[in-house]
Each structure stands twice: as C-alpha cells, then as structure tokens.
C-alpha cells in the first residue's frame, strides 16, 4: 500500500512539474512535427509512397522523439531531489514506478498528438482502427517509458547524454518497435495482431522485472 502511495505521489509530482514547464508540448511535440515535415521534403512528391510508409514512419518517429520525454529537463532527477528522497526513505522501486507512470502518460499523449499529425500530413493508406491502435500505443508507451527511465538514470550528469541516452535506448527498444509496427501492418495484411501484441506484453513485462530489480542499483549509480 505504502509502495503505491509513494509511486502515485511521485508520478503526480512529475506531472505537476511538466504541467508548469510544458516541455513535452512546447518542445518535443513541435520537434517531432518538424521531423514529420522534413521526411516528405526529402522523399519528394511521391504521395503514394508517403501514404504507404506513413505508419512505419510514425513508429520510428515516436520511438526517437518519445524517449526524449524521459530525460526532459523538468524531470525531478537532479541529485538534490534524489538525496532528499533517499533521506525520506522513499523506496527506489516506488520512485522508478512513479516516474515510469508519469513518463508513460506523457508518452501516450505525445503519441496521440503525433498520430493525429501523421493522419493529417501523410494520409496513410490504411487505418488500424481506434481500439487496436489505442492498445498498441499503451503497450508501446509503457515499454518505452521503462527503458527511457532506466537510461535516464544511467546517463545522468554525462555531458554527451543527448546522444548517449538514445544510443542506449534505441537498440534495446527493437522488440517494442517491431511489435508495434507489425501490429499496425498486420491489421491490413492478415488481420491477426495477437502474436505482435503478445510480443509487446512480454517486452513490457521483462522491462518491468529488470527495472524493479535494478531500481536500487540505478539509484546508487545516479547519485
């Protein structure tokens, strides 16, 4: 009970900070929007090609830009905040879960925003349907939030963090990317998405176990 109370308090605190700073909406979403515009500029006027690659592009974009949410400047990861939490006896695992919940919620909102932009700009040839799409987005966001939160701790205070953290997350996020992209593609190809959804669930569970088991070590390494 105490664990969840701590986790929910930390998640609320993270979201409050983000509401004040507005980093996700004012910086990360416009940055992803800029990337969505750059790609068709590079491809040219082949509208059919753009429509065909709309969903694969969407998943690549939300992976590369979504992870930025976890190491936004307003996240309460600075050493003084951590030290206070340790002094207060906050469970590192509860802190990890709280941060993951906040990051996952922000990533879900981010992914919906970028999804709407993709629909407007790319006119994808097929639509996976709202219910299925929402489920895939939630599973993808949960996995990416866990992975990015761990990477945030591993790279805290490193000068080259902006490049190093994505280098850590991108290869490890491959099961998430493949699961999400294939779920969307399978809707139109075969209609069977269950194996890909299971892949996402399995990846999320493995990440949750790893995150909880390493929470104390990550806390120690980030100080």
């Amino acid at each position, binding site marked *: 009970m105490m664990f969840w109370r701590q986790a929910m308090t930390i998640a609320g605190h993270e979201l409050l900070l983000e509401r004040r700073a507005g980093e996700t909406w004012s910086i990360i979403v416009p940055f992803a929007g800029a990337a969505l515009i750059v790609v068709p500029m590079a491809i040219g006027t082949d509208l059919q090609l753009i429509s065909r690659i709309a969903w694969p592009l969407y998943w690549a974009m939300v992976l590369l830009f979504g992870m930025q949410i976890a190491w936004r400047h307003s996240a309460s990861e600075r050493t003084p905040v951590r030290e206070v939490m340790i002094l207060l006896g906050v469970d590192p695992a509860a802190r990890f879960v709280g941060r993951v919940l906040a990051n996952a919620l922000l990533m879900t909102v981010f992914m919906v925003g970028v999804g709407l932009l993709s629909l407007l700009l790319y006119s994808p040839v097929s639509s996976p349907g709202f219910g299925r799409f929402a489920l895939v987005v939630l599973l993808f966001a949960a996995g990416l939030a866990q992975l990015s939160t761990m990477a945030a701790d*591993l*790279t805290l205070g*490193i*000068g*080259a963090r902006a490049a*190093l953290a994505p*280098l*850590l997350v*991108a*290869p*490890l996020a*491959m099961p998430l990317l493949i699961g999400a992209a294939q779920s969307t593609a399978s809707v139109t190809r075969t209609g069977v998405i269950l194996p890909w959804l299971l892949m996402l669930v399995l990846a999320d569970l*493995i990440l949750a176990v*790893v995150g909880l088991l*390493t929470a104390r*070590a*990550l806390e*120690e*390494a980030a100080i």
Partner: protein
Amino acid sequence: MTRLRLLMVVAGLAAVVGVALAYTTPPEALQRTYARIVNIHVPSMWLAFLAFAVTAAGSIGWRITRNRSWDRLAGGSAEIGVLFTIIGLVTGMIWGRPVWGVFFDWGDARMASTAVLLLVYLAYLALRRTTIDPEVRAARASILGIVAVIQVPLVYFSVNLFRTLHQTQSFRPDGSTMHPTMVRALLVNLAAFTLLYLALLSARMLVARLEDAAAAREMAAAAGGAVLPPNLTGAVDG
C-alpha cells in the same frame, strides 16, 4: 608478462594450425570454397558470446565485491566482444553476397539481432568512455553489463525462434550436419580463437591496470602533494 607472451605464442600457433586445417578441408557441395569462411565466422561469434558472458560475470563480480579488477575484466571483455562481433558480421556478409545474393538481409533474424547486439555493446562502451569517475562508471556499466547479456541467448536461438534465411545450428544433440574433416578444422579454430581471446583479455587487463595507475599518479601530481587525491569510497584495487 612472460605468461602473456607465452599465451600469445600458443594462440598464434593454434591459429596457424587452424588456418592450415581449414585449407585442407574439401570444398562444400553447393557453396564450394566459400564455406571455408565458417572457420573464422563461427569462432568469431562464439568468442563474442563468450566475451559478453564474461562482461556480465565481471559486472556481477563488481556488484558483489566492489573490486576494480572485476570492472576492468567486464570492460576489457566487452571491447574484445565488440571487435569479434564486427568480424563475425563482416565475414557473414562476405559469405552472404555470393551464397545468398545480398550482403545483409534485414529479414533474417540472426543477422538483424546480431546487429542490434553490436549496437547495445557499442552503447555499453560509449557509457564507459563518457563516465569519467571510475566508481560511477563501474556502477553504471555493471547494470548495463548484466542486463545486456539477455540478448546473447536471443541471438543464438533466433534461428530456431524465427524460420528465416540463416541456417539452424550445425551441431545438434543427434550429431553434426558437417563433414568430419570440416568439424575437426572448426574445433581447432574454436580453440585457437579462445586462446586468442584469453591473450587479448590478459593484455587489455594489463593495459587497464597501467592506465588506472597513471591516472592516480596524474591526480596526485595535480594536487601538488599538498592535497591527497579524492578517496573513492568503497573502491578496492585488485
């Protein structure tokens, strides 16, 4: 030092015998002489898997003992693992072009998962390189070193999990699918590469120890003798 030289000489001799045996094997029925590359490709990948397992063992060792030697072992082994993963990928691509028709097939589970494995360990090395404080470096790298090794069985069993282009294992419980002369050459090369790994790892550990000693001397000199270098809490130099 003498032991290291001896190890290098033995590894070198074993490699010469391995190459000679590889050339005495008959050409494969379909792949002809291209099949001989297996004598470098398979030992390279075996060595990469071994090296990453040693990295994980070194990481666990550091977490338990906080002895710097374990961290040096983990870091050194990862460097060698990355080197041999690249050799494994490149030899696979050289073989793939004439036999499969492409250098790299993105649809192949083994190739794609090996490329991802390489990226993860490149990130591991980047994390080590960019973290300056040795204790923080060891703490952070040990977590990634333990977590990243999960990928090794995934890469190994990817050919069984996904039926794509890469063939399944040639050595099975019910016997080998290869000709006995090819098996003999491959086993000698596996032994030669393992000795080479031990020699490279010993040399890297020695260099890392010297680097650490030099860094400690530099810190002491920078402090001018009046101030002692920072006391790294919990650090044990082995």
